């Protein structure tokens, strides 16, 4: 057997899970979909003494609409983000990002909460939470708190979660009519982690960009939000946008990592192109959405 020995806990409620974490904190790891954690256990990169399996906690699964927001439970699987009509209609970025995660066998197990808590810098879903200013609900021994996506990701594989806290749900704002969305990425093979990727949401009214949200993954140690670019794009006419220039502006302040697959300079070039692609695809889908309502 490859993993080191661990005690296995199978709580049925969030309260039970939190109480196990309160008892074991540093020594415990939460097991959700297991698609990143179990490989780390197999390679003994992680050797937690306690594993807290939250797959049996029914209240953590699925999405529901509440007060103009979509609340998605931590153990909602990528396959559900891809296929659930309510989730896909309310927050199209989840439906667009999910199919780009791993392979379908991975998406049958991997979870939203797991992806955020793992905080791989090249993962899609953390960048979606950044673009949409999602709120992340966590529960610990002293109760529940909400962490803004902007505050949640600290560095590669590191988040604002305390060892005795459980990520329970993510609250996404639902954008209104006239909106379009896109997720664009470059990976060496289908299903690999992306070298770089861009997430875009845009709201178009009377031919102008009313609101735009842009974030990137694989371009730093955490997902990057492109606030300055968003400001300069707001109010701009959608016709005649200089996508190459916009892309270059978007990556100007970023300092992406270099590895065996791509240099920092290459990531910047690819990232600039992806911003342009994501923005134009989102504008196109906003136009299609507008046309479907006309």
């Amino acid at each position: 057997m490859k993993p080191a020995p661990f005690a296995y806990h199978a709580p049925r409620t969030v309260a039970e899970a939190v109480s196990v974490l309160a008892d074991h904190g540093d020594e415990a790891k939460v097991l959700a979909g297991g698609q990143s954690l179990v490989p780390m256990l197999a390679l003994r990169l992680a050797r937690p003494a306690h594993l807290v399996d939250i797959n049996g906690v029914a209240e953590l699964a699925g999405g529901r609409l509440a007060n103009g927001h979509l609340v998605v439970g931590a153990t909602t699987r990528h396959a559900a983000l891809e296929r659930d009509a309510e989730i896909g209609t309310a927050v199209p970025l989840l439906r667009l990002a999910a199919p780009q995660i791993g392979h379908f066998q991975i998406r049958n197990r991997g979870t939203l909460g797991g992806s955020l808590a793992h905080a791989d810098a090249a993962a899609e879903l953390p960048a979606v939470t950044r673009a949409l200013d999602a709120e992340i609900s966590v529960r610990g021994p002293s109760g529940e708190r909400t962490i803004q996506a902007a505050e949640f990701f600290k560095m590669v594989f590191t988040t604002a979660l305390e060892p005795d806290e459980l990520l329970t749900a993510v609250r996404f704002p639902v954008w209104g009519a006239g909106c379009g969305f896109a997720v664009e990425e470059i990976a060496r093979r289908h299903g690999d982690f992306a070298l770089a990727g861009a997430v875009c949401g845009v709201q178009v009214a009377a031919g102008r960009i009313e609101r735009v949200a842009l974030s990137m993954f694989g371009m730093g140690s955490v997902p990057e939000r492109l606030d300055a670019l968003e400001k300069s794009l707001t109010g701009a006419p959608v016709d005649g946008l200089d996508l190459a220039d916009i892309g270059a502006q978007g990556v100007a302040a970023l300092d992406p990592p270099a590895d065996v697959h791509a240099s920092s300079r290459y990531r910047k070039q690819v990232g600039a192109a992806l911003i342009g692609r994501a923005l134009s695809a989102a504008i196109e889908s906003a136009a299609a959405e507008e046309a479907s309502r006309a």
Partner: protein
Amino acid sequence: MPELPAVADAGTEVDVALTVNGQPRRVRVEPRKTLADSLREDLRLTGTHVGCEHGVCGACTVLMDGEAVRSCLLFAVQVRGADITTVEGLAPDGAALSPVQRAFREHHGLQCGFCTPGFVISATAFLAAHPQPTDTEIREGLSGNLCRCTGYQGIVRAVRAAAAELAATEDASGRKGPA
């Protein structure tokens, strides 16, 4: 669903009841034993192959409640009450191969055969969800399994042929219905 004690201590074995290929089974496992190892060692179902053991190669793919999953990324203690199908369950009597298995044989979809159980299980789940797949969808559907012998062309052909055969069977049974 049979209840597991809320805690299983490190190093101690616990009983897990599950359904494998339609049969109720029971295994006694340490928490750290993967489903792949338990299928092979405890249930002697060695058709499920163990390749990379960290979720990359897809050789250990099985169906869990009808969905394809990596059995090396699940612990046996996690599948209590679940319905598992391994490659042995696709041709239960050992004589008649499933349409996907037959297509792999006929279209040179395997050479050494190590990756084949994973491919066959993945393709079976893929075709259930995509009865009329395009070539792009087939390639995407197979992208989670690695083969080091065939160059994949024969595997793609096999899945295309299996899709056609399954569609024809469906048509034939469909015609019988309303008449």
